[in-house]
């Protein structure tokens, strides 16, 4: 079998919080074959060239959402992106935009994990509590179809790296969290809409979005967060007007 190994220069953003005042770039010459992902390129660097390069990864098959990075300026899962598409290079790998850099390619996800995600109450708030003995909450395939693709979010944060509004104002709840809010609001078993709409209507809510639309472009799971956010602008507007017409507002 012919050896089809080629070489490409990968420029990695490097940042060591203990010694560096600001990030710098370091270039590695990496041999690769056609079947190698960018993640495998990074793993080659760590194993063979420079053990100090720090990056996150886990599943290698686009489901864990750990390995998101800016690849030539585009937010992508590095396991889902191939080195062959960047040949002859050089190519650049950086940590996800709009997040603080912890070290090299690893970002600080605290804002999303601790603030954004819990704020949308991403769990079913049932209409009526049932004991186990009373059985499961039933749902038809049509009812499931309403929210299913929003439930495929893997929290990889590519959409936040694609959202300039989040970069400019980190208080904005952001694409993935609002898509998850919409996922639970659209679930026939859920009754938490009123609680979640308070956040959607707030300054941190859906109106922080200016429909750039790049979040949906970069989403590796087809969640379409821009669609979720913008449907909730309509919902938020209706909430605003209906509160004058009904005694309890449109919170049902």
């Amino acid at each position: 079998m012919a050896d089809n190994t080629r070489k490409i220069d990968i420029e990695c953003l490097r940042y060591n919080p203990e010694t560096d005042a600001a990030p710098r770039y370091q270039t590695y010459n990496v041999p690769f074959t056609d079947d190698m992902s960018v993640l495998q390129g990074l793993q080659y660097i760590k194993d063979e060239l420079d053990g100090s390069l720090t990056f996150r990864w886990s599943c290698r098959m686009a489901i864990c959402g750990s390995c998101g990075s800016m690849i030539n300026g585009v937010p992508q899962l590095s396991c889902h992106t191939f080195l062959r598409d960047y040949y002859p290079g050089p190519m650049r790998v950086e940590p996800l935009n709009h997040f603080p850099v912890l070290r090299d390619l690893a970002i600080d996800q605290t804002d999303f994990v601790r603030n954004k995600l819990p704020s949308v109450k991403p769990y079913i708030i049932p209409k009526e509590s049932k004991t186990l003995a009373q059985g499961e909450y039933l749902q038809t395939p049509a009812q499931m179809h309403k929210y299913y693709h929003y439930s495929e979010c893997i929290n990889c944060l590519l959409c936040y790296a694609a959202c300039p509004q989040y970069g400019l104002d980190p208080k904005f709840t952001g694409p993935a969290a609002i898509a998850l809010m919409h996922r639970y609001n659209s679930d026939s078993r859920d009754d938490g809409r009123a609680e979640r709409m308070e956040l959607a209507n707030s300054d941190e809510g859906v109106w922080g979005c200016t429909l750039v639309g790049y979040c949906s472009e970069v989403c590796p799971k087809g969640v379409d967060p821009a669609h979720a956010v913008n449907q909730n602008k309509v919902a938020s507007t209706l909430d605003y007007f209906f509160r004058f017409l009904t005694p309890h507002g449109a919170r049902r």
Partner: protein
Amino acid sequence: MSSVKTYVRPMAGWWRKNPFFVRYMIREASAPLFYLYALWLLAGIVALALGPVAYATWWAIATNPLMILLNLVVLVFAVYHTWTWFSVLPKTTPDIDVEPGTLVTGGVIAAIVVCAALFAFAWGVTR
């Protein structure tokens, strides 16, 4: 936020770094042009109400080659701006099982039909 030291990258020049953001900024930045164009049309109506001399002045400015060129520039941006909003139609409609492409084409056709009908109506009324 965690207590670990982190580096926050600046946002300066963010929209120049990605062609997607450049197209977005052209969409947003073109909006004030239509506001100015509407004001200009409004000035025409005011001039019409003021009398023939005022209207003749407005008309003289409106038919100046420079003004026509300016109008053409605004028209180009208006077409681009309009197109961008039709192309994000699938992001704003309720969840329906229609292909995004079909939705955009349908939206454009519907808009053309409505505009043509309005134009025909106005034409009929004013003749």
